[in-house]
């Protein structure tokens, strides 16, 4: 077997091991927190009417929330990269032949699987909470599948770039603020058409909006399109925007990651350790 294939296979195994670690013991509580909180919101908002459309807000939120959790992969990548640089995991990968490749494959496997788990945690109970989702139609699932794949690629590659540029876990923490802002204007928790026009423009530059829209297009009945911009699901635009982000990410992320990895060394890890210990002490 070639060295590159070995790295990919070992990386996949690494991803599975990390996934198991992320979903055992106390970690599980943290993993369940946000999906369950989202379900609670869906439950309480399910009967709140949207204008005079006749639809309840909960039904609109649930598919949009699927898109949001896909987008959260970005934050997961950033946080884990920052932590792995600080504690020397990445340096260990660099000191091993094919280690960086295996590390990245492991990250992609683990984070993608984590997101799939979130989606299942949302969707399985969610279908009992809200009525009217279009789950029986195979076309729904085809749309879901391609939006999901493009979304995972786009958000994780962007995350990898941001994670390479942000050097500390604290910096990664600050990043969640603008991301929360983008979620607020993304049309996931309230129809985007209710926002001022310039905010709608901002929201449409970012994958989060399109992920929400794509998931609503997949699972909402066709008539619900009235709450969307231009009363259209805009599948073509969704594919174009998510595709553009994905391509940009796939081209740029390896360059940025390689540059970051090249700079890792024992003394840099030691420096960060000193700083972290000062923070604690």
């Amino acid at each position, binding site marked *: *077997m*070639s*060295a590159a294939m*070995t*790295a990919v*296979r*070992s990386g996949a*195994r*690494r991803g599975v*091991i990390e996934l198991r*670690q992320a979903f055992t013991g106390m970690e599980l509580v943290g993993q369940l927190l946000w999906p369950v909180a989202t379900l609670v919101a869906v439950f309480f908002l399910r009967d709140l009417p949207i204008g005079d459309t006749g639809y309840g807000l909960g039904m609109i939120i649930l598919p949009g929330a699927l898109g949001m959790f896909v987008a959260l992969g970005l934050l997961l990548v950033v946080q884990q990269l920052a932590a*792995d640089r600080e*504690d*020397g*995991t990445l*340096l*260990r990968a*660099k*000191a*091993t*032949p*094919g*280690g960086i490749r*295996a590390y990245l494959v492991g990250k992609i496997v683990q984070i993608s699987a984590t997101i799939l788990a979130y989606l299942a945690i949302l969707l399985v109970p969610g279908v009992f909470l809200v009525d009217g989702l279009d789950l029986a139609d195979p076309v729904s699932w085809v749309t879901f599948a391609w939006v999901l794949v493009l979304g995972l690629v786009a958000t994780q590659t962007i995350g990898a770039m941001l994670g390479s540029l942000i050097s500390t876990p604290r910096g990664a923490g600050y990043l969640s603020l603008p991301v929360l802002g983008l979620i607020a204007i993304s049309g996931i928790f309230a129809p985007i058409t209710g926002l001022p026009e310039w905010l709608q423009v901002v929201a449409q530059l970012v994958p989060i909006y399109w992920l929400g829209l794509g998931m609503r297009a997949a699972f909402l009945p066709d008539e619900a399109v009235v709450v969307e911009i231009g009363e259209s699901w805009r599948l073509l635009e969704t594919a174009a925007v998510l595709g553009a982000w994905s391509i940009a990410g796939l081209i740029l992320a390896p360059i940025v990651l390689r540059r970051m990895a090249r700079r*890792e*060394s*024992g*003394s840099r*890890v*030691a420096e960060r*350790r000193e700083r972290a210990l000062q923070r604690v002490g």
Partner: protein
Amino acid sequence: MTGDVAIEVEGLRMRYGTNDVLHDLSFQVGRGEVLALLGPNGAGKTSTIEILEGFRMRSAGRVDVLGVDPAHGGEDWRARIGVVLQSWRDHAKWRVRELLDFQGSLYEPYSTAGIRRPWEVDELLAAVGLTEHADTSVKMLSGGQRRRLDVAIGLVGRPELVFLDEPTTGLDPKARRDFHALVRRLRDELDITVLITTHDLDEADKLADRIVILTGGRIVANGTADDLSRQIVGRDRVSWAQQGERSVRHVDDSTAFARELFARHGDEISELEVRRASLEDTYLELVRNAEAPMAEPAEASR
């Protein structure tokens, strides 16, 4: 030449901005040799080892590690080298065997006719004394056990050359002694080249075949521990009492000094005591001189 030389460094310089950290280092490490790079903190040991590991770019000079310039070392070069990192808390949730299995799997494509990679994990666990902790999670290991795991990770690919950067910093005395025993056993049982950095002379003396002393980014001595004590003439400490008043002097030739002392003062001298310079005194003096190059030589030797 390259057949018996694992590491060759010639005219190595390192500069950060306008600050020279390494001045024209030249040394060699033979195959199968254990070399200690000894020096105080800030002497440039870590910069040197990171250049050799391929983790840091040099400013000038020629560096050759296992026949390859580390600045351009590919993955197959990387597979022949073990790096024992100063760990902190990476892979804390992994179990010991799981982590070694994973690390080892990456070396599989690099097996050669002569060297079967990776090292079998059970065998390796036994070699570093972690057999009973195979299923422990890494965060539950003690400091000494964790350090032995670091060594195991460095060795799992059956490297021809291993780098150990300050391996016993922060270990308690017992863990330190165990660690030294482990490195000595590896040195005796495996045909492996080892480069170790330390600021502790005792450690260098115990582990290394040869010691290179680095201070202020310069090599000030290079040889076996015996060579060093002979080469660098340490000053002997002579103390005596003259009519009840005690004096101490550090001198190059204590025998001649004592003869002179008696010739001049005869019976007035009592309680004469001569202590030869130990390797440690020599090392400390070298370091002191390098750190305070402006100080008067007479002052420095007191």
